[in-house]
C-alpha cells in the first residue's frame, strides 16, 4: 500500500474531522481524492503539520487529525515532546511513514534505516502510540477518534511511491477561510 491508496482508504474518517495535511504530495493527493472545506492544506512550512494540529486541538473541541510524514516529523521532532505533555484528547497525529521523502523524489529517510518514530514518540511522553500497517490504519484511526479520553500518535508503515498529480489550485486565503467557516468562525462566506 502506498500513501495515495492509504488516503483513499481512510477518506471517510477524514471528511468527518478537522484535518491538517502535510505539504506537498500528501495534500495534493488528498485534494484529488475528495476535497473538503475541513481539510487545511499546507502550502509551505514543512515539519509543522503536527504543531498546527496541536494548536488547533487546544483551541476548540472538534476532533483534529494531523497528517504528517516521516521526513516532516524528523524535521520537527521537538514537537513530539510538546504533544507528549500537552495534547488534549481531541488530537490524533497520523504519521504516514513510507521511509522516504516522497515529494522530493523518494530519497530514503532515517526511518528506513535505524530510527523508530514509535520509540521517539514514547520517549517524548506520548502515551498512546500505535505502529501499524497501512491495512490496519483505518481501524486504528477509528479507535483513536472514538476514544474521548486520550490523544494518539499512529505510525502507519507503508511503501514509498507517488501518483502523478497537479499542485493544489486553491489560494491560501481560500483554504484558511473555508476551514474557519466550517468551524463556525467565518460568517461572511
Amino acid at each position, binding site marked *: 500500500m502506498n500513501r495515495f491508496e492509504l488516503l483513499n482508504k481512510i477518506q471517510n474518517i477524514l471528511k468527518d474531522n478537522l484535518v491538517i495535511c502535510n505539504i506537498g504530495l500528501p495534500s495534493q493527493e488528498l485534494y484529488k481524492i475528495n476535497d473538503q472545506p475541513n481539510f487545511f492544506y499546507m502550502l509551505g512550512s514543512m515539519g*509543522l503539520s503536527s*504543531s498546527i494540529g496541536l494548536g488547533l486541538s487546544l*483551541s476548540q473541541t472538534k476532533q483534529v487529525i494531523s497528517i504528517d510524514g516521516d521526513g516532516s516529523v524528523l524535521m520537527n521532532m521537538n*514537537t513530539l515532546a*510538546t504533544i507528549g505533555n500537552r495534547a488534549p484528547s481531541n488530537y490524533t497525529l497520523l504519521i504516514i511513514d513510507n521511509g522516504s521523502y516522497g515529494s522530493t523524489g523518494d530519497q530514503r529517510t532515517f526511518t528506513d534505516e535505524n530510527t523508530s518514530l514509535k520509540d521517539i514518540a514514547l520517549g517524548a511522553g506520548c502515551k498512546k502510540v500505535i505502529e501499524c500497517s497501512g491495512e490496519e490504519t483505518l481501524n486504528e484511526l477509528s479507535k483513536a477518534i472514538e476514544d474521548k479520553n486520550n490523544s494518539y500518535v499512529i505510525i502507519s508503515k507503508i511503501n514509498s511511491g507517488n501518483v502523478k498529480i497537479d499542485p493544489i489550485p486553491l489560494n491560501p*486565503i481560500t483554504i484558511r477561510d473555508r476551514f474557519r467557516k466550517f468551524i463556525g468562525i467565518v460568517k461572511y462566506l
Partner: protein
Amino acid sequence: MKISKKIIDNLKKGGVDFYLSVPCKLLANMIDILENDKDVYYSAVPREEEGMGICAGAYLGNKFPCIMMQNTGIGNSVNAIVSLLQLYQMPVVFLISYRGTPGEPVGAQGGMAKITENILQTLRIPMLHCSSEKDLDRITTFSKHAKVVESPVAILCDFNLMKDDK
C-alpha cells in the same frame, strides 16, 4: 514585576488569549504570571519554529495567539513566519525579549541583536520597540492592529527595560 504585569495586562486587553514561550530570564516574571492565570492558555514549547505552527493552529481555532521568546527565536522561525503565518495571513503577536541591547552582559547576544530589526523589516513585520515603561501603553492598540492587518506583529522589549523588573 510591575513591567511584566503591565505587558500581560495590555496584551490581554488587546484580546490575546493564547500564550506560548521559549524561556528567557527577562520573560520569567511574565511566565510566572501566565502560569497562574486561569483566563488564558499558556504553555512552554521547546522551539520557536514549532511555536509558530502551534500559534497558526490556535488562530484557526479562533484564539488570538502570542509567542514569547528571545530575539534569537526569530532566526529559528523565518520560514514558518513567511510560509505559514504570512502566507495564510494569520495574526500572531511576537513578544520578544531584546537580548544584546545595551545593558546586556552576554557579548555573544550582540550578533542577533544587530540584525533583529533588519530581519523583521525584511519580513515586513510591524514593530513596536519598547524601551521605557511609557511605551508599554501602546501594546493594546498594537496587538489589535495584528488582527486588523491579519499579520504577525513584533513587540521588542529592551534588556534595560526588563532587567530590574523584580
